[in-house]
């Protein structure tokens, strides 16, 4: 089936996600949809899948308009979309997930069909298991089989390689090739990773700031793609942080700790941190790095072992004591966990710096707003800020004198400029002897900014190395459990 986008625009309130996109997709090909975070890739695909409607423009299937696209109508046209976080039902079993919204089948029939399809692509999924027991990669495979069962001949995969292992990735790519070449289906592979797009696709579409910036055929040239993605002021990677002072002694240590979270535990973790040190945490979601950050912040339990800071044992103490000791936690979910949606910027400053009263608070806020380049009025509510501004507000609210800053995905969802600004501020903190521990899904970011890198696999700490002695590729292998730590 041939798909044609005609002059697609999409607005969310005042925010423009897509502007004037027109393009044609032919059957039997694998398309790469490339662009940095916030370029409008997911929005465009959501419109094709009927998950949201364009503000203007139309989508034609084999030259015909089908009217307002709803998810069921899009599925009826054979369009299926796989999300980065699989859109499934953790509380339900695998076969129930497979059947939901699918063809009418009884349980036996559904399980049989699931296994039949799974065998074809070498996916092994236990039908009676609850979806919550599966890895992200397996849940993705399940969703893919469900769409194939529905007869989807246009498959959208949104950042499918983010949460999965290297082996799972290879299996997925093989399946995608098989689907396009042997069965003539259209595949749209949404990603911000150049190498993957170049490896897999027959055509690459690049989006920048909601517009179609380019449409390329092989052979692809990486520098050209980068130019199209980021515009002229590109130059990926970013500057490295300040050098580590060699002669300083560790001020904080974690000794043989067993950390217990909501869903899982991390055993026998040991670690010590020196002033001004930057430690990057690599690992697939749910493999232990989140738990380490939250435990060091005093937000989750330490069942065994000790956390020692400046001679004082912190384990078992309430969160407020960790804060008093100079530890600060910086959450990934900004509006959900970090800010008060309906309170103003000034009120945030007042809460963060309670000793300043009255007028000084307003002065403080204005200074913070200027210094951190927050584009908003002091009395605007946090809800109305863009992602980047929310992130800078959170940075501005970090107290002056802190010893350890724990960050979850400090630049997730930010464009490159905003990300650079974040690292600029963080580097400044390090020069004042604040230590940093951060997690990120972007291995380049970890490699660039860390002095030391910890890798997590299977809820264990599998490597603890100086940054210069580990490559991005090796990190990837360790994260997938393919090598043992030195």
């Amino acid at each position, binding site marked *: 089936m041939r798909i044609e986008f005609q002059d697609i625009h999409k607005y*969310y309130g005042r925010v423009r996600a897509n502007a004037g996109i027109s393009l044609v997709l032919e059957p039997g090909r694998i398309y790469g949809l490339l662009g940095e975070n916030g370029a409008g890739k997911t*929005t465009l695909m*959501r419109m094709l*899948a009927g*998950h*949201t409607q364009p503000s203007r423009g139309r989508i034609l299937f084999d030259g015909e308009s089908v009217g307002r696209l*709803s*998810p*069921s109508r899009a*599925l009826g046209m054979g369009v299926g*979309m796989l*999300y980065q976080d699989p*859109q*499934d*039902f*953790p*509380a*339900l079993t695998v076969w*129930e997930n497979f*059947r*939901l*919204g*699918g063809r*009418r089948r009884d349980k036996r029939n559904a399980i049989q069909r699931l296994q039949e399809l799974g065998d074809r692509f070498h996916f092994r999924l236990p039908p009676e298991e609850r979806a919550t027991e599966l890895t992200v990669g397996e849940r993705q495979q399940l969703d893919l089989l469900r769409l194939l069962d529905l007869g989807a001949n246009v498959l959208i995969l949104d950042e499918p390689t983010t949460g999965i292992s290297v082996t799972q990735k290879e299996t997925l790519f093989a399946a995608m090739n098989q689907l396009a070449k042997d069965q003539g289906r259209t595949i749209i592979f949404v990603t911000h990773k150049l190498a993957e797009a170049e490896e897999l696709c027959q055509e690459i579409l690049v989006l920048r700031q909601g517009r179609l910036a380019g449409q390329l055929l092989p052979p692809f040239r990486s520098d050209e793609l980068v130019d199209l993605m980021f515009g002229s002021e590109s130059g990926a990677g970013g500057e490295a942080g300040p050098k580590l002072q060699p002669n300083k002694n560790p001020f904080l240590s974690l000794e043989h700790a067993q950390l*217990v979270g909501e869903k899982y535990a991390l055993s026998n973790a040991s670690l010590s941190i020196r002033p001004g040190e930057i430690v990057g945490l690599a690992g697939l979601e749910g493999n232990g790095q989140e738990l380490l950050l939250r435990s060091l912040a005093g937000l989750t*339990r330490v*069942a065994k072992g000790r956390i020692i800071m400046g001679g004082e044992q912190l384990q078992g103490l309430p969160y407020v004591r960790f804060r008093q000791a100079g530890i600060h936690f910086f959450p990934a979910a900004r509006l959900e966990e970090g800010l008060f949606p309906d309170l103003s910027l000034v009120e945030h400053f007042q809460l963060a710096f309670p000793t300043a009263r009255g007028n000084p608070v307003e002065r403080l806020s204005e200074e913070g707003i200027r210094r951190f380049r927050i584009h908003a009025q002091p009395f605007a509510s946090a809800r109305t800020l863009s992602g980047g501004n929310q992130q800078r507000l959170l940075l501005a609210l970090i107290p002056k004198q802190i010893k350890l800053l724990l960050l979850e995905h400090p630049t997730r969802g930010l464009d490159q400029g905003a990300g650079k600004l974040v690292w600029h501020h963080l580097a400044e903190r390090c020069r004042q002897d604040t230590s940093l521990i951060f997690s990120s899904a972007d291995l380049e970011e970890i490699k660039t900014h860390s002095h030391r890198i910890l890798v997590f696999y299977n809820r264990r700490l599998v490597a603890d190395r100086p940054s210069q002695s580990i490559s991005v590729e090796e990190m990837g292998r360790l994260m997938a459990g393919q090598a043992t730590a030195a």
Partner: protein
Amino acid sequence: MDFLALTLAGILSAGAPIVLATLGETLTERAGVINLSLDGTILLAAMTGFVLALLSGNPWLGLLASTAVGATSAAAVALLGLALARSQLAVGFILTLLCRDLAYFLGHNYARQLGPELPVWSIPGIRDLPFVGPALGYQSPVVYLSLLLTFFLWWWLFSTRAGLELRAVGEQPWAAFTRGIRVQRLRITYTLLGGALVGMAGGAFSLAVKPGWGRPQGAEGAGWIALAIVIFGGWHPLRAALGAYLFAALQVLGIHLQELFPMLPASLFQVAPFPVMILTLLLVNVGTANWFRDLTLRYPGLKKWLNRWQVTAPAALGRDFRPEKEA
């Protein structure tokens, strides 16, 4: 033996309206919607059912009217809480007070009158069995209905395609939406259906279990108990019905206690279930508290014991769903 059978018959009868209300609310909450208005809705439905039965002389018409009142009250929850995205808790609470006052106001002139009741059915085959006969053989139709509905909903929720979709909508509405399931429409449907069952519970009170109308009717507080039993029942029809019958057993026990302390007012015994309700909710919820988690790290046996009681609510319970907002 006969005494036991008759007590059991009393429990089945006293429990019937609570079972109906609990099943109705379980259905609604499985779809991710909280209808907090039960206590008022039951009264308004009880009043309407009684009055219509009185005026028409037909108790079945009364029961039908009760059901319609329950669905209407739920429609208000659906309109304000779903279509217009107001707080479901706020709307439900206002309706609780409003429906109760409306029942007293409109039913004022019909209080303490003798009206028709639903007939007692005797079931051939069952009524002659030893023990089972006296317990189950001669009951009001609402008793049989509550028993049948319990098993029907259990089967329907866990073994049918529609039941699967219902659970999906209450768990992950966005995921359900992307699969082409009409989330809002299903939520509204189950809010109305659940409300209808709640209304039927009101009719079961005024036309069978506590026949008649008055201020107080005697069904006051039952709605709150039903809401608590939904939680205790872990949103599962069988466990919820079990909870409702346990509560009815307590009530029957209370009547015997009352005979032992004749100097205390009857209304004192009506509040007795509420401390039990608080303790029950404590039992099923405390496992998620941090201090309790610490305790279970030290005494794993405690966790094992308590795990049997723990419940998890539908993940999207009480949350507004708008596809445009999620995107």
